[in-house]
């Protein structure tokens, strides 16, 4: 038996809301048929794409910033254990308490215990992907603690008993009228004649949350960045709800994925340029808060950081896939993705939708548990072009497709094809046989339709022709034609 002090380090997959309950094509079917949803998504993603392009185009050194961002993150991954220890030491020295969680359940337990220790039965929350991932709100509710989302979009989703559908704008699937209806129905203090103007809706949210902020004892946040050298945490936001949560309560608990580190404070100079321009298309987001442990007399005096693995070690273990851990959650890849733009975020079944979700979720859970997601892409590459940290999403998608389980028939067919194509003689022979066999059929189709294609193949090949035509072999190969010349 090994000594307990030297644990068996086996990179482990995670749990929480990262596992698609339905295969992507099944889940996407109803979304694609929902005209309202598609209209909302189209409008929103088109708007933000335009903003991002304008914000990025005015930066002459954008390419150099991306190079730096990608390299800093690659360096972090390479030195992750060492940097985490350094972060822990610095944050602890500054008065924070650092906790570690192997998985979602353990992270939730820690937050529940800390909230109880603070004598609170409710918490205010800053928008955080990590807490969505670990399903913290559900865990808090089960422990009798009410979690109040304070980001406008998260509030909309929470009041609508829904789940987020976008990393940055969780309520992107709703338009203003739908949001007004949710507020009228579920927000007790909303005016009865509440209109659908964004300004009015934002005002309603401000009033709804004001007292809650001023009286909150415990806040829960995530972090956009954690600085290893100094123990500093950074939260980037727009509305001021983040500042409220990070400043007013006595106790602050931040749930941080281990990949969020940057080595030094100076590295923020790169990410504070890359993130706002890539995500909201602004030169800078309205508010960025940074804190290092406890500042006596200013802000929370009881400060906790929960460092979460939950599958990240499994992602790190794959040399090809690990760069998915570079993601700074800007969501630019969602906004340019033709698949996301039509299917929306819910079809991905994970808190991480879109192209980044299609590579991150399967790696966090193990590909077998999210096998359809690597296929939820056309491999067009638009995601890689906009990624501020240059994650080669298509490359990782293809890599994960190779790991996904394939049906026996498909595997056998591919193996046979590979055997045939390995030898020029076998290949030429196979073509000749196929041509002979399909010749009369091709000629008949050509006479009737002008093309040598079949609309429908018998099962199991019918799966292929459901959305495509199947081409028949040409009457003559290029080589045969060349030899005749």
């Amino acid at each position: 038996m090994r000594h307990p002090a030297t644990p068996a380090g086996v990179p482990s997959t995670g749990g929480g809301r990262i596992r698609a309950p339905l295969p992507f094509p099944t889940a996407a079917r109803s979304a694609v048929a929902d005209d309202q949803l598609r209209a909302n998504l189209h409008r929103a993603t088109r708007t933000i794409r335009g903003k991002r392009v304008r914000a990025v185009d005015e930066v002459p050194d954008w390419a150099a910033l991306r190079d730096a961002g990608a390299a800093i993150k690659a360096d972090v991954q390479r030195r992750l254990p060492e940097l985490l220890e350094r972060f822990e030491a610095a944050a602890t020295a500054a008065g924070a308490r650092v906790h570690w969680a192997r998985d979602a359940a353990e992270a939730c337990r820690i937050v529940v215990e800390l909230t109880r220790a603070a004598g609170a039965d409710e918490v205010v929350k800053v928008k955080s992907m990590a807490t969505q991932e670990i399903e913290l709100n559900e865990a808090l509710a089960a422990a009798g603690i009410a979690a109040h989302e304070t980001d406008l979009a998260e509030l909309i989703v929470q009041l609508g008993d829904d789940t987020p559908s976008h990393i940055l704008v969780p309520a992107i699937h709703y338009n203003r009228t739908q949001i007004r209806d949710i507020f009228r129905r579920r927000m007790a203090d909303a005016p009865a004649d509440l209109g659908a103007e964004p300004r009015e809706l934002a005002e309603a949210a401000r009033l709804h949350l004001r007292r809650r902020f001023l009286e909150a004892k415990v806040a829960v946040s995530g972090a956009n960045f954690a600085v290893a050298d100094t123990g500093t945490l950074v939260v980037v936001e727009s509305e001021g709800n983040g500042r409220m949560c990070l400043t007013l309560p006595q106790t602050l608990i931040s749930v941080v994925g281990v990949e969020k580190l940057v080595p030094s404070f100076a590295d923020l100079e790169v990410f504070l340029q890359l993130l706002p321009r890539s995500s909201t298309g602004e030169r800078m987001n309205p508010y960025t808060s940074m804190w290092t442990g406890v500042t006596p007399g200013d802000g929370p005096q009881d400060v906790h950081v929960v460092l979460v693995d939950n599958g990240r070690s499994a992602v790190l273990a794959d040399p090809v896939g690990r760069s998915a851990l570079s993601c700074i959650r800007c969501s630019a890849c969602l906004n340019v993705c033709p698949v996301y733009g039509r299917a929306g975020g819910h079809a991905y079944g994970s808190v991480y939708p879109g192209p980044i979700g299609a590579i991150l979720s399967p790696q966090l859970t193990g590909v077998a548990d999210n096998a359809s997601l690597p296929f939820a892409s056309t491999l067009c590459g638009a995601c890689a072009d906009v990624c501020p940290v240059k994650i080669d999403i298509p490359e990782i998608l293809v890599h994960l497709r190779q790991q996904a389980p394939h049906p026996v028939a498909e595997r056998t067919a591919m193996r046979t094809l590979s055997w045939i194509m390995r030898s020029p003689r076998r290949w030429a022979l196979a073509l000749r046989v196929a041509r002979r066999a399909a010749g009369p059929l091709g000629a008949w189709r050509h006479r009737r339709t002008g093309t040598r294609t079949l609309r429908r193949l018998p099962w199991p090949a019918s799966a292929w022709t459901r959305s495509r035509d199947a081409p028949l072999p040409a009457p003559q190969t290029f080589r045969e034609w060349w030899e005749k010349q």
Partner: protein
Amino acid sequence: MVGKAVTARAEVLARLRAALVDAPTPVDVPRHYRRVAESVDLVELFVDRLVDYRAVVHHGFDALPRLLAGVDRLAVPDDIPGHWLTGFAGQVRRDTPPLSPADLDGMDAVLTGCAVAVADTGTIVLDAGQAQGRRVLTLVPDRHICVVRTGQIVGLVPEAVARLDPRAPQTWISGPSATSDIELDRVEGVHGPRRLEVVLIPDDDVIAPGR
């Protein structure tokens, strides 16, 4: 076999070390991005960017009494330079003893200085240093009047980061509170101050607490 005694910390670190058995090659971080802005009129650029994000900009000290004329209750940090309040007839609430959130909620405005400002992004950074006070001061009141000395304006984000101490709690402010959560339409004014007014003063004004 893993015993109960293994802490989550040890387990997570061991997993991450095991994940790196392929020993990835060291990375050289290329830093070819701009560290210092080329010669541009920083004040002009800063004003342009502030206005673009709907902050209101005033020039010179003379603007201050005019701005404050409409304010009854004004929160200020302890070490606010005395002459910033010259001619102010309303009620000044200093942050000693610390003002409660409810007190601050009843204020018409807060007046502070700043640590550094970034022209390229129209950003004002507060670090709880001189004439800035606690973070909560500039958060709860609905109107924030911020005095920026022209010498505090730098060109680019890297220049600002270089001037700041990571140990100080920082708030980077770019325009008033805003949201784009509804149809990605930007709306100014949610939870933070809905009005941000910037008073630009020449650099030769030395901040002297209690003057």
